[in-house]
């Protein structure tokens, strides 16, 4: 057995990471996802970062963010959405 002939690309892994973490992929999709992670240190690190981000963000109380920081974040998010290349300022 050679593993999946059609290995997921890094881009596909990035697109699927949220569904993977939410357990929304089928078992076959999960295995293909994990086969890619087994050989791709970059995507494995990305998954770890996403998991850490979710854990930290989940503990963040909205009132703990000061207004100035909140304004900067909202500005960055709006600019990101407006920029077709997806770059935040």
């Amino acid at each position, binding site marked *: 057995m050679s*593993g999946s002939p059609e290995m997921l690309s890094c881009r596909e892994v990035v697109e699927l990471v949220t569904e993977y973490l939410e357990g929304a992929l089928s078992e076959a999709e999960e295995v293909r996802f*994990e086969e890619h*992670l087994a050989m791709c240190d970059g995507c494995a690190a990305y*998954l770890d970062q996403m*998991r850490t981000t979710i854990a930290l963000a989940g503990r963040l109380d909205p009132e703990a963010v000061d207004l100035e920081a909140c304004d900067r974040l909202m500005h960055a998010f709006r600019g990101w959405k407006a920029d077709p290349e997806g770059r935040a300022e």
Partner: protein
Amino acid sequence: MIAYTFTGPGARRPFRGDRWPPPGEWAAAGRGSRVDHLPVWIATELWLVELEGSVHEVATQLRADRGRLVRRIDAWDDAAAGEFARWCGRRILELSRAADGDERLNAFRADAETFAAAADANVAGWVATRAAAAADGEDGAARERARQTGWLQERLHLDPVPRV
């Protein structure tokens, strides 16, 4: 059933971001593989794992409701992983030389000699498999993975059906 499972350093469960509990203690969502799928999952440590509850196979992976580590296979260490990576590198060169002039295989040749480190073992196996696919199609890829399984079985003295 008893199967094999690769983990990160310190029995870190790949992809889950946590560690297996100490050997003998059950954990939810047991994962493992048969010996012939081991090359797909190569990582730092190799263990025997006991899987229990709704054990089923999805492509290259065995899945179960729970699993527990049984014992580590010490023969799989950095030295063995480095040997495997270099063996795959040589195999890539063989495949590319046999099809001299094939641009797809020439592209693999450039990378082949860089596979020397233990950390390269999984990628080296995958690249050798894709080089074999470029030379002989997916049947060639399957044969290449079988060769890699054979290398692991012989070098690590693995039983096809693992025993405790």
